[in-house]
């Protein structure tokens, strides 16, 4: 009963105080992030195992990725995390219009990232670097000869191991992109309450939790970029 009329409907019936509600949401979200870490952890493990098994071919296949586009995307994603953090800040200060503008910025950066990613993906299709029947990896003859002389790798062997690299590449970046798409859809639901000024110092946990999710997805990319694009690159 206590003060519920005063506090509006933002305090759920089973909590005693905003502090309890906020702390619960925050702990719950951290636990969700923990399960996300374990989720991506499985595929990071697969990457690690295969990278250690095939360092030469992985490095060679890695050179096929577009460093410029990947680099730009890294910057774009970090900027989107910045605007997301600012949106949460605006929410805590109760500035609805500010929240909306920063959310739009976040959405735009997310869109740019996915756009660039799709350009990269379509290039892989054109170069027959998508795993499956049409996969064909064609490094320079010089590289092939080098691997044959030093390691005894046949072109067939190199082709198969490169297909493994691109399997992991598509699985990892695809999962990451899927998380971004989910995030951008959820983000749309914050516009209305933000515009109406529902967020304030007492009540802003939904947007704060979403911010955690967005930063998490960002950090996944911060790991993916060096792992896939940079390590051992020729």
């Amino acid at each position, binding site marked *: 009963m206590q003060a519920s009329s005063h506090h509006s409907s933002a305090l759920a019936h*089973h909590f005693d105080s905003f502090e309890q509600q906020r702390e619960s949401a925050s702990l719950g979200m951290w636990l969700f992030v923990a399960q996300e870490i*374990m*989720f991506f952890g499985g595929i990071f493990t697969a990457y690690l195992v295969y990278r250690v098994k095939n360092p030469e071919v992985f490095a060679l296949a890695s050179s096929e990725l577009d460093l410029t586009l990947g680099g730009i995307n890294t910057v774009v994603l970090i900027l989107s995390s910045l605007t997301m953090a600012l949106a949460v800040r605006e929410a805590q200060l109760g500035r609805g219009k500010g929240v909306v503008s920063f959310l739009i910025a976040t959405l735009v950066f997310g869109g740019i990232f996915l756009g660039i990613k799709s350009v990269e993906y379509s290039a892989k299709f054109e170069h027959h670097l998508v795993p499956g029947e049409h996969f064909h990896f064609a490094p320079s003859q010089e590289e092939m000869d080098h691997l044959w002389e030093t390691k005894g790798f046949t072109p067939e062997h190199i082709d198969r191991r490169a297909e*493994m690299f691109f399997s*992991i590449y598509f*699985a990892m970046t695809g999962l990451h992109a899927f998380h971004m798409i989910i995030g951008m859809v959820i983000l749309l639901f914050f516009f209305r309450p933000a515009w109406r000024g529902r967020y304030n110092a007492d009540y802003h946990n939904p947007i704060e939790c979403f911010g955690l999710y967005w930063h998490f997805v960002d950090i996944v990319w911060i790991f993916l970029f060096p792992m896939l694009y940079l390590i051992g690159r020729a």
Partner: protein
Amino acid sequence: MSNAKSKERPEGYPDRHYLNAAHGLKSWFLTTDHKRIGLLYLLAITLFFFLGGAFAVLIRLELATPGGDLVQPETYNRLFTMHGIVMIFFFLIPSIPAVLGNFLLPLMIGAKDVAFPRLNLASWYVYMAGGIFTLWALFEGGLNTGWTFYTPLSTVYSNTAVTTAGIGIFITGFSSILTGMNFIVTIHRMRAPGLTWFRLPLFVWSQYATSLIQILGTPVLAITVLLLALERTLKLGIFDPALGGDPVLFQHLFWFYSHPAVYIMILPAMGVISELIATFSRKRVFGYRFVAFASVAIAILGFLVWGHHLFVSGQSVYAGAVFSVLSMLVAIPSAVKVFNWTATLYKGAVSWETPMLYALGFIGLFTIGGLTGVMLATMGIDIHVHDTYFIVAHFHYIMVGGAIMGYLGGLHYWWPKIAGRLYPVFLSKFAAIIIFVGFNLTFFPQFILGYLGMPRRYHSYPDEFQVLNVMSSAGATILGIGYLIPMLYFAWSMFYGKRCTQNPWGAKGLEWETASPPPTLNFDEIPTVTEEPYDYTPKEVQHAG
């Protein structure tokens, strides 16, 4: 309609409670009340238990004779696969947490609900969505990979409904994760005033430990099954040996979840047993803190032992030795629990109510399951009995003899709280005893069969194994009847059972300090806790009934 007896209201029986607070299908399917969600889960997992049981019936029928008389080998492969998938992912894992945990956790800690009631309801729908995919896989003809989905059988060679079933398990896993998240936050943030960590009932401790595994283990299975599905559909060859992929990596990832999953099943059952032993011995659980920390220790150690499933899978011998030692370490916290329960019984005022029969049955069966587990952790014995019925017997002693006995014991103990009604005493004791007898007759012969060398997962076997197999099939019949009886009298009791008083066992714990059945918001006034758990001092002993 109901007879006069079921209409009688004992003094203090509530007019309004969570069961009659609202009516109609919508009030159930859109409820956010943790107690109603617990009942939704109860209904759903009972259906899946029935389904998984039906597969078991067919398996035992086939194995009653040495020849493959009833089904084709391919059909048999699908039967044991579907039995495993349904029983593990759709019954055992959600059983105690999602039914009893959901119902009891907020009551035990003096809260109005779990921390995230809507997420709680969502978890049920996620579970059902996964269940529908699994049923769909069944209608596609089932799958033949075993519940373990080993590659490359599951990726390259099997043309059965692997992808559909995989999607079902992927989805259902998230219901488990959501439940775990909800419970951890609830235990951290929703406790009543004065309810410190060491005043929590041991059931709550065990749920906490279980939730840790659900959150940290399940996503690893999710990504593993997802990669498997991607390999089948999009030809991403993560586990494909032709691309240098490693099927053993699949086994590592799979067991990283699926071994701890055994502790998702057994830890909550241990929590139930702690409650039952305390109540029906009228004593504080001996070494409360040891039992509490043993749950956490099992959860943590459980993550470090998965390699004992890979002793014959091309894992290095050194890794095998390490996993062997780590696996034996799990025996320590497990034994702490068994010894402490036994010490609690010592000089206790033990009464032989139905839940107590299940508790005592649990201790015996779990001990056999646990000790054979230590045997199997030694590489020499494991390699000898690998993939034989010895393994089958071992894990059924843990999962059925342990987890299901705990689940049924808990259901009998808290049923008056759930339904506000009683069940037939004699019939329930009879069922408990024939479940115990039927269980041992089913699975003890399988230890011998396995030791003699009968491999698992074949639909036929040499003649000399028939006597023991017939014993096993006969036991399964008794066990099946034993399971049907409680299903029937619980369904009857829900509507026609005699109404009970608030605390028919005279038990301690916050859940008994509110009406049976409880009001929607659990307590008329949130209690303040001033005493240790299980504080059964002689003057406070109340007699049951």
